[in-house]
């Protein structure tokens, strides 16, 4: 069976300070494995200093509430092919649903303005299903 790699993004609009913003996506049935993920944003300083999240794949909690998003950001000083957080051996998608609960936290030095948070997924696809 032919396999190829695909990247998929999930955007979350953070519109309210101090609130939880949830979003879920159903992956295509052709997805065989989730190989890795990372987070980016259009306001990286806010994501770095204000963000925590919960991540669930196939109803399984990968990161519990309050896990700081800054641990899942890789930027200019990291080589592009190393920027994804790798899941050892890949993760089978199960029910194919990925759910993120992103929480914006107050920070006195980084006042809130609306921003976007993006979850990037690195996927392995079965070509000829």
């Amino acid at each position, binding site marked *: 069976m032919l396999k190829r790699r695909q990247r998929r993004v999930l955007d979350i609009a953070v519109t309210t300070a101090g609130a939880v913003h949830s979003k879920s996506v159903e992956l295509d049935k052709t997805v065989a494995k989730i190989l890795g993920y990372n987070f980016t944003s259009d306001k990286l300083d806010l994501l*770095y200093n204000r963000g925590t999240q919960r991540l669930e794949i196939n109803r399984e909690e990968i*990161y*519990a509430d309050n896990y*700081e998003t800054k641990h899942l950001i890789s*930027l200019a000083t990291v080589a592009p092919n190393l920027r994804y957080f790798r899941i050892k051996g890949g993760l089978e998608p199960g029910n194919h649903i990925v759910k993120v609960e992103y929480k914006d936290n107050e*920070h006195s030095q980084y006042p809130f303005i609306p921003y976007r948070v993006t979850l990037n997924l690195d996927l392995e696809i079965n070509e000829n299903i």
Partner: protein
Amino acid sequence: MIREEAIVILLPVSRIGEKVYFQKSLPGDTRRIIGLEYGVTAVSGDAIALPVVTPSPFQVIADKIIGRLTLQIPGREGIFFRGDLMEERNFHVNDGLTDITWTAQVWSHGGNKEEIELSVDSNTDFIEGFFSDSYGKDEFESLTYQLHLYLWIEKCIT
């Protein structure tokens, strides 16, 4: 099937030099503890006025010790982690990207976040730990913050 998962432990620290004892229960299907990460949020306090230092690509400054952490499994011999939790302050050194108009920031130049690797069998319900703070020492009159500890575990899914 083996799965990896992060458990979050939140420790509020409200006094400089505070010592915190804590316990955290582990999921029943935990097989091993494999790693530790940490971070600090909600920092607030009265800073001591210190000379402002402009980061330069050639200037190395001392990293800050957040505190000392000890972890153990109750009833088992020995501790499985003891060490200083550090805040990196030299992210700007030799980055090769900073110029006059763009200054390195921790969120753009911070190093790859990697967990401290551990390998601990865990046929137990919970772990216990002891944290001794030194984050505000020499820099703050008073300081409150929240320490996040992330314990990576390996689970056995049937």
